[in-house]
């Protein structure tokens, strides 16, 4: 109903800048001129931002207050490849994989709006594969650290708080990636089946994309603050 108002009065809904902001909030119509699913996804992501910030802030707090030296992440996460210790190499590969998956997801959204069913589904599938391989590497990383004696309450490299921060932050992010892979596969199947053609609702792909890009976004902060700092 309120959408009809929007459609009939483009002069109000299309006002730009500060005036448009005031009109959107005060006019007798819905505030956010986007499909409701997209608005709700944004609000979910906003709440998720607060959760991840709580994790990273807790990490900052215990790291600042730790009396033991913090483990050198550059060494802890190095891998021995062909006789050389390469610092952080696995984390770097994971970062590039996640960025690649964000790229393929952005393309999927674009092809979705062009109603290219096959390409959209294929690109979403590739995105899910990238995501699954990311989780696979994380499993490898976890088992390597657990083998080296890293526990949530202690570790042989330094401050005890390192373990709990590592498992909580990367674990919660890995959970997001895992759920995202399932989410993407479900939507990709629907796209492939042509579910969104009749109702012209390819914004569903964009909403899935928002979630996926957010997972990549969170990794940018984890990479900077946890692994590089």
């Amino acid at each position, binding site marked *: 109903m309120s959408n009809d108002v929007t459609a009939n009065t483009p002069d109000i809904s299309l006002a730009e800048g500060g005036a448009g902001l005031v009109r959107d909030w005060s006019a007798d119509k819905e505030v956010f001129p986007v*499909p409701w699913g997209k608005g709700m996804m944004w609000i979910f992501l906003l709440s998720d931002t607060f959760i991840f*910030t709580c994790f990273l802030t807790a990490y900052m707090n215990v790291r600042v207050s730790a009396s*033991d030296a913090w483990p050198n992440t550059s060494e802890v996460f190095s891998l021995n490849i062909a006789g050389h210790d390469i610092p952080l190499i696995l984390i770097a590969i994971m970062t590039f994989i996640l960025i690649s998956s964000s790229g393929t997801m952005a393309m999927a959204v674009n092809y979705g709006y062009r109603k290219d069913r096959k390409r959209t589904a294929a690109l979403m599938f590739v995105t899910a594969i990238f995501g699954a391989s990311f989780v696979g590497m994380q499993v490898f990383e976890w088992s390597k650290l657990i083998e080296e004696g890293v526990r949530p309450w202690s570790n042989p490299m330094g401050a005890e708080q390192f373990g709990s921060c590592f498992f909580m932050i990367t674990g919660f992010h890995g959970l997001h990636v895992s759920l995202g892979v399932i989410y993407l596969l479900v939507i990709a199947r629907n796209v492939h089946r042509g579910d969104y053609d009749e109702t012209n609702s390819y914004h569903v792909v964009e909403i899935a994309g928002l979630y996926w890009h957010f997972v990549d976004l969170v990794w940018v902060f984890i990479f900077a603050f946890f692994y590089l700092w």
Partner: protein
Amino acid sequence: MGQIKSDEVSSQESSQHPLGLYFAVWGLLFVLSAFSYTVDYMQIQGEMRWALIIIFMILKAGFIVWFFMHMKWERLVLSTAILLPPLVLGVFIWLMNIEGNSTYDLRMKYYDIEKTVPYSHHKSDH
């Protein structure tokens, strides 16, 4: 009916984004990630390290939100509703930083620790 109309509007807007733009942003994110990794690989330390890490992080986050998450094309009413609330987190981070430093000072004062030392030197004391 109203729903379909608004979907058509958004599909028309979004399909106008050229693929080249996505490739450009994608490439930039790759380059910035490579720079971040280089900071660690070259073992740049101190304030220079933190400054570079933060700059590359903010640029990457900005590109993702602005182009990949389409914030550039959203109306001001949505982008302000989503991007302004996280600013209060700055206050939270600031307070927790003060709190953490104060805890550290207390530990230094009341624990039998002279100062932060590498774990290997420290272990034999226990």
